[in-house]
């Protein structure tokens, strides 16, 4: 009887420890998601300067950044969107948007919406496509869109390099 009680207590402790570990792991993942800084610092990707502060919008005020576009992200489960401007070799301007979705499905939905025939598949994150002036990829719950404002011969390669820089930080 005494031995059974001892075993029961031991099992209870093990169950409690496992439960605490799971809760801690989930909480930690949440922290990482909300605090992740996906934006490469200036010169951490060759030729690219971060040219603005990072701005972050949660779902309810996303309209302030992309009014009219916000709805499709909200319906796909966006949690927050962060954005920053970049400049390549002092000339080519681009913007990096990092949408944190509630899960990978939302990121997939946005990526697959609006793709055109000239999209070129690229190896970035879980999936990605590139155009002459933009790169879009998803990695887990993150959907990243990088857009250049001009098309130059060096734009596609420069955007890809920056995209790899962002991917490495996710």
């Amino acid at each position, binding site marked *: 009887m005494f031995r059974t009680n001892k075993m029961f207590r031991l099992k209870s402790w093990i169950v409690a420890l496992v439960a605490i570990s799971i809760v801690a792991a989930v909480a930690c993942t949440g922290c990482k998601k909300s605090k992740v800084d996906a934006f490469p610092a200036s010169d951490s990707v060759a030729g690219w300067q971060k040219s603005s502060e990072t701005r972050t919008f949660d779902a309810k005020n996303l309209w302030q950044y992309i009014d009219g*576009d916000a709805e499709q992200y909200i319906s796909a489960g966006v949690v927050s969107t962060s954005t920053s401007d970049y400049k390549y070799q002092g000339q080519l301007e681009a913007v990096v948007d990092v949408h944190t979705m509630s899960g990978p499905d939302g990121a997939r939905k946005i990526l697959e919406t609006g793709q055109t025939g000239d999209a070129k598949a690229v190896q970035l994150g879980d999936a990605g496509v590139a155009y002459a002036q933009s790169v879009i990829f998803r990695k887990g719950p993150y959907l990243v869109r990088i857009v250049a404002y001009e098309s130059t011969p060096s734009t596609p390669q420069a955007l890809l390099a920056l995209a790899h820089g962002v991917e490495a930080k996710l």
Partner: protein
Amino acid sequence: MSNRREFLKVAATGAAILGSQSTLGLAVILDQKAQHADAGKSKVVIARDAALHGTSTHPDEKRVLDLLDLAITSYTRRATPMEAWKHIVPAGKVIGLKTNGLGGKGICTHLALVLAIAQRLQQAGVKPGNIVVWDRNARDLEVCGLTINTDPSRVRCFGSDVSGYENEPVAFGSAVNVKLSKILTRECDMVIGLPILKDHELSGVTFAMKNMYGVVQRPFELHANGCNPAVADLNCIPVIREKVRFTIGDAMSSVSQGGPGFHPEHLWYPNALIVGEDRVAVDHTAWQMIERRRAEKGLPTLEGAGRPPRYIATAADATHKLGVNDPSRIHLVEV
């Protein structure tokens, strides 16, 4: 930009000797319209310059000025831009130029167009400080390449984040209950809309009428049901209906899919300005331009994509009477 500003200041001084301007404003144009063969129709001018961009993504400033002159003289049937402008803008009044920078740097009202209009307004006798370039906020203006300025001795440029919004909301119909920008209600006597032509994820097309979402505090509240009837209702609010009397629509570049944000994969260069007083006719014309491009690119019609711009027909109905959407009642001039 600063050199251009200096030029505008000089131009403003020069404008003082150009003589007095018309006090008749748009009424003259309306009279003129009534006199020609297409009386009863709403006139819309599409002015194009295929070489506007050359090999650059930025339009050539001189060509933009020439295109503006062509559009305005064609619309008013006046011999010179100065004559035309003097009959468009009322004397001694504050003229607002409502730009659209929502889509960011890649797809916003072109700086060259804003500067060209400001230049012609001053040469037509409008004092620099009586020209207010405005939009929702500083960011929307700065992405167009504009610089914030509230100094009344120069062309002013600021957003509703500076002016604030009226405390009392105004309503029209079932869809609209909004607080309006004080730039519209208190600063401007007349507003010229300078929208940029775009596909729109919700409303199908955004141009003259939809540009008025940028004059209210919480535009996202007007997105239900493809923005219909909200766009039409909003434009029926008296201060909008009465003050926003002319559109010089920027269709120099556009996105035919993925708007209102900038999706360069859908960017194209119509190299055009679409000008008119009848905002419904202007929007109908712009819509057809988007549809033609979508057809060229193998995209479905906006109806097929599930987002036809129904607000255009609503704006023309007996309740709203904002203009005409029947092509047989639109006198389309292409130059």
